[in-house]
């Protein structure tokens, strides 16, 4: 075992940072796409129309019972097939993330809306509001406030999940580190470094989420 040699990180810094950038790109796509799709599916899960409710429920239960790694592989094979031509690993990974994470966002959103008591709806109805007005002015504003900590936590999960794109060759942060490692054989320094970077980011986001959760408690 040699001495610690942090120079390897200094030398390869630009390359590693490029990987980190890719990680952020993938995370942003996963979070925004996942949330948008998640809102649709989440509200569909609350519908009393069976034609809307059952497909949404199937969607959510299907993806939540599978490992993300497998879903990434699946879309890696499926996307070029559907598109008719190779689409690149980043694109396939993005599709996989958006769809997979949407099933988790959908549940957060559904739970958020359901957490508002039936009596709040009745109070709004009793003053003559319609369903639409009740949702718009009373239920959804409250639900959003309640959901923010969980949404933030899930965003952190997406950020961590991007590391799985490693398996189909996407040059995100983890893979960049392993590429350097293959060349330089400085595993300890490299993996410790990326571990610390991930930790700093995720820890601060989760602290933020806890603070928002506490503030929410006071506002109520």
């Amino acid at each position, binding site marked *: 075992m040699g001495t610690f040699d942090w120079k390897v990180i200094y030398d390869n810094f630009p390359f590693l940072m490029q990987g980190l950038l890719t990680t952020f790109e993938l995370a942003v796509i996963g979070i925004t796409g996942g949330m948008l799709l998640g809102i649709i599916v989440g509200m569909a899960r609350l519908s009393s129309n069976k034609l809307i409710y059952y497909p949404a429920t199937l969607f959510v239960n299907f993806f939540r019972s599978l490992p993300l790694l497998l879903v990434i*592989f699946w879309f890696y094979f499926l996307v070029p097939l559907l598109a008719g031509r190779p689409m690149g690993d980043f694109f396939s990974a993005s599709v996989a993330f958006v769809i997979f994470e949407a099933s988790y966002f959908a549940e957060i959103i559904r739970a958020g809306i359901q957490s508002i008591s039936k009596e709040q709806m009745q109070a709004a109805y009793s003053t003559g509001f319609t369903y639409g007005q009740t949702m718009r002015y009373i239920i959804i504003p409250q639900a959003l406030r309640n959901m923010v900590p969980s949404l933030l936590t899930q965003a952190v999960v997406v950020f961590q999940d991007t590391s*799985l794109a490693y*398996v189909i060759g996407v040059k995100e942060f983890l893979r960049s580190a392993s590429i350097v490692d293959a060349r330089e054989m400085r*595993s*300890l320094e490299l993996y410790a470094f990326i*571990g610390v970077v*991930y*930790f700093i980011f995720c*820890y601060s986001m*989760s602290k933020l989420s806890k603070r928002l959760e506490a503030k929410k408690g006071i506002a109520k």
Partner: protein
Amino acid sequence: MLSYDFKWSILWADPYGSWMLEGIWVTIKLGLICWFIALFLGTLIGTLRVTPWKPFRLFATGYTEVFRDIPLLVQLFFWYFAAPRILPHSWEMYLYREIPNSEFWIVVVGLSLYTSSRVAEHIRAGMQSIPDDQYNAALSTGFTQFQTYWYVIIPYAIRLVIPPLTTECLTVFKNTSLAMTVAVLETTFMSQQIEAYTFHGIEATTGACIVYMIITLVVVMIMGLVENRLAVPGLITRR
């Protein structure tokens, strides 16, 4: 659409079928071993997080935060590639040469530690939702701190946390798939191995999907039975 003809028979044809079965067995072994270690460790750490002694609490909090804020894959890579470097050379050689399946056991270390931090969080949340007066009632009858936790708090908390623990058990089995990146021959690895030999990626991956869905169903059923067995009127009731 790219022309593609589906060939589902690869899933059971020789030798692919037996590869899959081997892989499934490894997944189940890995999942169960990690789950039980994580349950034990996690209960310990989770309890430490709510004890009145600050050093224990700080340690447990640090433990939880570190394992939760670093991606699992990065952790596995760390244990597999980086950690052995810290060991003295002879230990490292022993690890790689003498222990059969060393990569399996390295993943056990990594996945158990990771999962135990998540279990700890659930246990902590469960314990903190137990009303203070339960502690006070037990202490007022002359129990020591330890007795209070052992006889009153932990049994109560366990029943409260069965639903989140069910989710965590499912997560462990899903996370075993990450072991494929460090050459553990489990289900996902095998499905991609089959793909490499037959070029029928969709069938192979779908086959693996079905395996995980079955595992999910079985776990949910078993945990449902456990929940019913432990059910207490007013706390959780029989469904």
